[in-house]
């Protein structure tokens, strides 16, 4: 039944100044890339990628507004409602994989990176500053290419530039990306150019999470059900990808 199960927070961990991980027991099977609807009672219910997909599940939250702020205040033992997992999740890629994460985009891909053989994964991870890098422990066994917008760590510039370089140097069988949509649009274009299949994980405003309210619609697709992960072919048909999103009211606005 698509109804929240109340779980108690078992562990919290500060990842950066405004990103925190919450761990709890929740027994349903989850694939990397799927998400939960997380109910903070009295406040809101919001979509959150599953950041730890084993039985001791986790979500990793960036504080951006009211609901995430309320969640941030919660401690071990506090109750939250979880329903899901929802969405398709990533298809497990074969061969050599290029992961491209921008900022909190690392959250849904980290558990997938952990599942890929070390020698098969190259991870490009871009953040604004050094302080905003997190999950480094989880991804460090793979080959890492880090960028920061201000050069405080790694390459000084955008992740997409590192990607172009990587694609020139090595052959990849698959690209997996999550991050700001404009960044993902660039990565998609690079993938098409190099004829490498791309999977990108999208975000849209969500209410039901189960494909009926239409609030997460993008050109006839539903991010909650058909996505959040879409392949290059589907992304190619989405005229709004990288350009328009929808507000809570359903109004179409520029990204």
């Amino acid at each position, binding site marked *: *039944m*698509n*109804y*929240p199960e*109340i779980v108690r927070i078992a562990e919290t961990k500060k990842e950066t100044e405004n990103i925190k991980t919450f761990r709890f027991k929740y027994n349903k099977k989850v694939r990397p890339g799927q998400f939960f*609807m997380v*109910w903070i*009672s*009295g*406040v*809101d*219910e*919001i979509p959150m990628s599953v950041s730890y997909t084993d039985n001791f599940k986790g979500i990793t939250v960036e504080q951006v507004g009211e609901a995430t702020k309320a969640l941030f205040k919660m401690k071990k033992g506090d*109750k939250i*409602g979880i*329903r899901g997992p929802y969405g398709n999740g990533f298809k497990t890629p074969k061969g050599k994989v290029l992961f491209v994460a921008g900022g909190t985009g690392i959250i849904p891909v980290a558990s997938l990176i952990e599942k890929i053989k070390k020698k098969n994964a190259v991870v490009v991870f871009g953040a604004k500053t050094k302080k905003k890098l997190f999950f480094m422990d989880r991804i460090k066994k793979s080959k890492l290419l880090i960028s920061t917008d201000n050069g405080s760590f790694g390459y000084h510039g955008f992740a997409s530039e590192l990607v172009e370089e990587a694609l020139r140097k090595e052959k990849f069988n698959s690209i997996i990306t999550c991050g700001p949509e404009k960044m993902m649009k660039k990565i998609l274009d690079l993938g098409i150019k190099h004829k490498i299949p791309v999977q990108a994980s999208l975000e849209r405003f*969500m*209410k*039901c999470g*189960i*494909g*009926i*309210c*239409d*609030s997460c*619609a*993008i*050109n*006839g*697709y*539903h991010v909650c059900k058909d996505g959040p992960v879409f392949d290059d072919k589907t992304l190619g048909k989405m005229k709004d990808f990288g350009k328009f999103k*929808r*507000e*809570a*009211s*359903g*109004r*179409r606005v520029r990204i």
Partner: protein
Amino acid sequence: MKLSTEISGLKLRNPTILASGILGETGGTLLNVARNGAGAVTTKSIGIKPKKGNKNPTVLETEYGLINAVGLANPGIDNYENEIKTALKSKIPVIGSVFGKNKKEFVLVSKKMENFGVNAIELNMSCPHARGYGVEIGEDKKIVYDIVKNVKKTVDVPVFVKISVHTNILSLAKNIEFAKADAIVAINSLRGMKIDLDLKIPVLSNKIGGYSGPGIKPVGVRTVYEIASNVKIPVIGCGGVMNGKDAVEYMMAGASAVQIGSGVYYRGVDVFKKICDEIKLWMKKNGYKRIDEIIGVALK
């Protein structure tokens, strides 16, 4: 096997219509629903201004249906032209659902809907959970009469009136007929509530919501039967249509077509195709050739 039906001049290739508020906010999705076999599609209820709706949780599953209090979230009529234009590419009838606080709003939004090209207007007078709209308006049969009459004066496309379960359904239905509406849609979801035992609060942020899905079918069938026995304008059945037999039951009760909402959740977006196939199978087994042979057979 002829599945086509007609509602006050509106021709449908089959009697399955997407109900308002399910998958009907964006043009692209409406197109996709048409591709999945619907005979017509209804837009989400649109008002005069953009409306965010309620905070989540707004839609959840309960034992025998769904419970929702989306809160009439909508982009506002002035942002809706492109959605309609996209939906119209489907070539099947697009029904524009309209809500408002008062006669003025209903008339204004209906007029704009018509200008955008919809093939019919559905006046939502029955939202079970939004204060100041919906049920509170639909309750007063004089207000309903007044709104319907004025919308009818303003637009040329057929006007449907969607009503809720109402203590005095017959006098309401008669007033709607008297106001020259082209069809009555019944029923909207029932006012319901689900309390979370763990957190000890109503689970919807709005507390009260609309209960829809299979659990409400007996109420919907009864309402359609009562209305169809008492008015001459067509009735469109809604509430818990999950399969072909449910659709046939509504049609026997007098519905010229059925709307499907929660069915999309239970059976996927191709529920329209599936239900049409099931209706055909039933017709074949029972020796029917045309859908209109079924409509109203159970009315004495």
